[in-house]
């Protein structure tokens, strides 16, 4: 591991000819052939990631579809389907040059017309996140077959961060153009992309097979012949399958943390927490700011001070998490490092609780139904809150019930975690701005927090392209949010990927396994 990392960084600085930091000649040293088996859970509804963008769909579909850009672990844009890009001085016009000679899996050439169709027609219609990412876009034009021009309505700081395959996948115009309903298009069952692997077979309930794209536009890759994604619904069964060697990769989140801690020590097993830099998941307890006593800032601060985040980190997460400092994950751009980690202070918490006018109401706490770890988190939280005198009633639900209750704001306290998508304007603002208070999604401002200053600062950060000015706005908002405590932030989650030592180089970008296994090899 160490040696490879050293080689990567050394070589990357020496030559411009690299792929996600890995020089081509090193890739050539990888062995060709073989098969990689990956655990998949839950089974995705579809792997056409232009229409379905849940975790498992991206895990598979990221091998089939590509975006204009990819991102290294520092979130710096790297060429993918676009090889270069220029920005006008006023920050309103972006011109992308596309890679020549790229072909769809059915042999058709990939051109600027596909880009315009994908973003302006297809994704705008069916992809909620892409749609919100391009609100600033005035027009998208194909200048020639390999040049695309974006004109913006106003400067948009995070613009170059919206083009990864998982957020803005390119889809084939020649297949979808003119279709009445993209969501129900029969071609979704046989995805056609430009990526390193082609769709071969999907045996529902069992596995999905992808095979090497021999016409891939990057020479030497992909290295393996075939990928199998095995649907194994039970966490203990996934662990057993991995342990017995039938599964090579357990992606982050697919094993219970007590199993992760145990299996990471087994011979022939490696663990990595890389590949989540783009997502930078941050967990918290949503506090329903609309209702008493949670509408009092003293109460929210008391609640936050009662929590033993360090204990949770050790007991529930087995160390694979870091205590948060506030609304930004430390991997995120413009993270303010001088804020202290959120710590426990029972005495202060009790004083604040008394000052908040809390009258002993019983609060409904909604655990996140995503396995044992979240169950432990809810139990510890209940204990912590009871210790300072807050009455808590647990309301267990399944995933559908959890969604429903958050959508309808029917909770007092609820666990949640969100991806930050590489830029505060893309992944943070949505949870705190007043304009995003709207029923129907568990991932917008469900806590109902509203503060004009916070709104103004987030807007300033979004519409500014000068990094220094953006930083000033975001530094200010981080401080303000911690004071207001609209939610009780818990941890930066470091989802561990377990893989068997025969698999080399499975993770090599800020989107990790979601970016595909083109550069992985087996030996």
């Amino acid at each position, binding site marked *: 591991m160490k040696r490879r990392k050293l080689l990567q960084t050394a070589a990357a600085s020496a030559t411009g000819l690299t792929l996600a930091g890995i020089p081509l000649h090193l890739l050539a040293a990888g062995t060709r052939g073989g098969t990689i088996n990956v655990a998949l859970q839950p089974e995705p509804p579809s792997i056409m990631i232009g229409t379905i963008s849940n975790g498992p769909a991206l895990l598979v579909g990221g091998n089939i579809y590509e975006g204009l850009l990819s991102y290294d672990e520092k979130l710096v844009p790297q060429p993918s389907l676009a090889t270069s890009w220029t920005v006008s001085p006023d920050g309103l016009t972006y011109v992308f040059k596309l890679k020549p000679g790229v072909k769809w899996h059915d042999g058709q050439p990939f051109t600027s017309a596909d880009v315009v169709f994908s973003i302006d027609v297809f994704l705008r219609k069916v992809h909620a996140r892409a749609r919100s990412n391009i609100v600033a876009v005035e027009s998208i034009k194909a200048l020639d077959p390999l040049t695309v021009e974006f004109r913006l309505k106003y400067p948009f700081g995070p613009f170059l961060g919206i083009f990864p395959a998982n957020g803005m996948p390119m889809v084939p115009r020649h297949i979808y153009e003119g279709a009445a309903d993209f969501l129900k298009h029969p071609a979704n069952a046989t995805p056609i992309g430009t990526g390193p692997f082609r769709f071969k077979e999907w045996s529902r309930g*069992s*596995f999905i*097979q992808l095979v090497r794209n021999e016409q891939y536009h990057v020479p030497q890759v992909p290295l393996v012949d075939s990928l199998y994604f095995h649907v194994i619904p039970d966490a203990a069964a996934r662990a057993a399958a991995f342990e017995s060697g039938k599964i090579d990769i357990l992606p982050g989140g697919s094993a219970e943390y007590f199993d992760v801690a145990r299996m990471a020590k087994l011979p022939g097993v490696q663990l990595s927490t890389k590949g989540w830099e783009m997502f930078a998941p941050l967990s918290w307890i949503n506090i329903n700011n609309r209702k008493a006593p949670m509408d009092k800032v003293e109460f929210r601060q008391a609640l936050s001070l009662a929590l033993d985040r360090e204990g949770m980190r050790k007991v529930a997460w087995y160390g694979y998490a870091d205590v948060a400092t506030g609304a930004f994950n430390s991997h995120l751009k413009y993270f303010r490092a001088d804020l202290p980690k959120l710590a426990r202070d029972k005495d202060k918490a009790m004083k604040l609780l008394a000052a908040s006018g809390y009258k002993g109401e019983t609060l409904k706490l909604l655990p996140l139904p995503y396995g044992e770890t979240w169950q432990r988190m809810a139990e510890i939280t209940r204990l912590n809150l009871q210790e300072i005198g807050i009455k808590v009633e647990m309301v267990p639900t399944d995933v559908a019930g959890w969604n429903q209750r958050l959508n309808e704001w029917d909770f007092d306290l609820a666990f949640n975690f969100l991806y930050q998508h590489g830029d505060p304007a893309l992944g943070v603002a949505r949870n705190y701005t007043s304009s995003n208070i709207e029923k129907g*999604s568990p991932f917008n401002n469900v806590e109902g927090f509203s503060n004009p200053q916070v709104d103004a600062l987030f807007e300033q950060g979004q519409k500014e392209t000068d990094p220094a000015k953006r930083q000033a706005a975001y530094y200010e908002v981080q401080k303000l949010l911690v004071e207001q405590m609209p939610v009780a932030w818990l941890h930066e989650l470091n989802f561990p990927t377990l893989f068997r030592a025969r698999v080399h180089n499975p993770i090599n970008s800020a989107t990790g396994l979601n970016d595909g296994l083109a550069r992985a090899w087996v030996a």
Partner: protein
Amino acid sequence: MKRLQFMSVRIVQGLLALVLIATANFMLVHSAPGDPVSIMAGEAGASDPQFVAQLRKQFGLDKSLPEQLGTYLTHVVQLDLGYSYRQQQPVVKLIMDRLPATLLLTGSAFVLSLIFGVGLGALASRHAGSWVDSVITVVALIFYATPLYWLAMMAVLVFTVQLDWLPAFGFFTVGADLHGFAKAWDIFQHLLLPSLTLALFYMAVYARMTRASMLEVAQMDFVKTARAKGVRPARIQRNHILRNALLPVVTLAGIQAGGMIGGAVLTETVFAWPGIGRLMFDALLQRDYNLLLGCFLFTAAMAVLFNLITDLVYTLVDPRIELS
């Protein structure tokens, strides 16, 4: 003639019951919190009202509940179970794809449990009070009381992780491209653990029931008469006692067979067996309404069918029972 009349009456009754079941299922499923749209929006990690409204319209969830029920029942009567929007395939196709795996698993477990359960029960009753009886009774009790889930996990840990004798998951070795006998052998190996774990519980139940029932019948006058006439003990055991003791076993077997389609959720989950039980469970978690209702209706139809078959088998086992 009588049998034909009986059958037709029962079939009509069964069909009526199925329509009632379909209605009840529909109401139950829709009363659970959360709908498929909120799930899909949640999984996408982002959604806006436009996305949600778009999906609701597509799934037909924007209509009133009675209207949806009306549409559903009209389709069901025409044997159309609808379309799974989540899986983007017709429900009937999804169920039929999973049917072979489920039938193989539950069918083999059914046969195994019946043969060994009745056999062991008969053996135990024959040697009532001896060590053979004690061993069988205790073992049956253990398997009866042990949770299926735990048993399955232990089986995987021992035979797959520790010994590496048997495969851990799935229906066959993916990517092996086997044919003919090699393929059958491969499936057999995959089938062994799930089928055994599923069979053990019912095996225990049949053993206990057969034993108790046979001991009871053995006290009856006609058995004493047979003994007094000098009939060979083995013949008494088989023709006089076992045959008469089988009625409760038939009842239970009917129930097991009726639940065969949907009854293997836990086993199918632990062994990643691509069967209908799991299909149904996933559909439940994802509020995949059409698929869930389709699975429910299918299993209900199986239960009704096997109920009918059980009644017919009664008359074969005990000619005194008449169809009416």
